[in-house]
């Protein structure tokens, strides 16, 4: 993904990029090598946004303050749109199921499964 394209997809979320999102994005890039080159950056960013968004919200831990929650919501929504743009249906469904699993655990007071593990597995869905 060109710098210009990343900038566009980070609208309103720029502050997160230096605060861990860029590293998370790069780590997911390694996992999306099997997809078409044009889709890879969007898929990696979508995964990174889910991971950072849920962390911001405090899912499974202490609730985030309202402005931070809204930022987390925007991360999830942006991720959903990126997946709609670039992911096969199976990956879209697998991502949603991963978030369902984590949030159900959070609501039940159970330990929330690792976001990274679930999303890496979701990339294997077709």
């Amino acid at each position, binding site marked *: 993904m060109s710098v210009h394209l990343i900038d566009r997809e980070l609208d309103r979320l720029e502050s997160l990029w230096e605060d861990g999102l860029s590293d998370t994005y790069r780590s997911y890039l390694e996992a999306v090598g099997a997809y078409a080159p044009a889709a890879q950056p969007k898929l990696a960013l979508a995964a990174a946004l889910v991971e950072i968004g849920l962390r911001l919200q405090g899912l499974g831990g202490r609730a985030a303050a309202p402005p931070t929650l809204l930022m987390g919501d925007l991360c999830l929504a*942006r991720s959903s749109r990126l997946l709609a743009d670039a992911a096969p249906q199976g990956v*879209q469904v697998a991502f949603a199921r991963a978030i369902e699993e984590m949030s159900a655990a959070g609501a039940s007071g159970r330990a929330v499964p690792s976001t990274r593990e679930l999303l890496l597995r979701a990339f294997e869905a077709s």
Partner: protein
Amino acid sequence: MIGKRVRFETRQATEFVDITGRLRDEVRRSGMRMGRLHLQSLHTTLGLAVNENEPLLLRDFQRLLERVAPANAGYEHDDFARRFEVALDEPVNGHAHCRQLLLTGFATVLVEDGELVLGRWQSVFAVELDGPRHRELAIQLDGDFSLPPRGGGPGRGARAAVTSDLLELELTRQLLDDPDPVSEPMRRLVEAGGKRLRPKLVQLTAGIGPRSEPLRAASLAAAVELLHNATLIHDDYVDESAHRRGRPTVAAAEGPERAIAVGDYYFAKATRLIAEIGNRSVTSTIAEALEAVCASQIDDVALRGAYPGDRDSYLGVVRGKTAALFAAACASGALLSEASTEIVEALRRYGDLLGVAFQMTDDMVDFSESSGKPVGLDIRQRVLSLPLIYAAEDRTVGPEVRRLLAGTLGDAEVGRVAELVVSSGALRRVHAEAETLIEEAVQELERVELDGQRPVLISLARSAVDRTF
């Protein structure tokens, strides 16, 4: 006659478990139109009650039970040395048995037109007196299970009823699949009512194109409603709202952690249901709308207190926060039915105009004693609503409105701001604008062929801004 068991887990020693939703589901699944639902506790420390689900009142009930039969009053039942055949895990619970005497173990709720007959404030509770435990109720449904007459070519009213039934069934079905910690709060919200405008728009517009499939439309409509409700659950936490649709919000009743998790769960579930429909244009349309909703929520909070504000900023927020999902509902239904691009875009514009008008009308509700909603919430939160913008920029009352909104807002100040807004004529101005937008929305419908759906869409648009104040 149908007999079943309703099973659930309690979490507290004393707990009022609202089972109204579960019972409604059982009635709907059974298809019973007219009759009686009998329920019976299968435990000697689990009672039944019909009363109001208001958290403070429930605490009053709990304290009443504790006063009448205190836990430490010394009960002969708890003197295991004098009893025969005491189980190894026998609990010390004489108080719980005595409290159960004050309640009932049996109840009957009437069913008419396929719905429980309950008053506005009535909920059915299973009352745990010795929890936490696994509990079980026996229920029997006894009555007329025949389907309502639908033969002879259904008219518009009958079609609308069937469409509405499909949506409610789909919502019920989806919630049945989910774990209790997330489904129960969402069920409370869904069952508390709401106008269901967004799913209705999906279903109506899904009947316009050549591929009209009511079941797929109901799936999409239910997903859109769940998505909308997920955003409301997070909004209520952000706004510190205690009630929605007359019931405690998830954040108020169960804490912000649960509210965040429930919102996230249904955000994800709704996007999954939409993805599973398998129409890429529909998925993208809803995803883009959701992004707009979330971005505008951030703006909405950031702009709070920035009076006098301006109409353009307001419209920017409202187009994202409210109108985006209305527009997406209209467009996605039409896309699902494979309507032409011209129709999809006309409906998208109709939804956008309707959404803005709807939000303007909702802003006015904040000043209405008769709306059923608390007055002055927007004032207290210093929301940049259109009536407040107009009053704040008014030459006569504006200085006082701005001064009040810049200071501490107690009940007296909130009341005074509301008076000033009304006296400034701001509400009339906002209402007139909303009506103009609705007429523009109706004009969008005049330009395309809508396969008989135009009158319903026009009626729905007009009713959305026609509220009694």
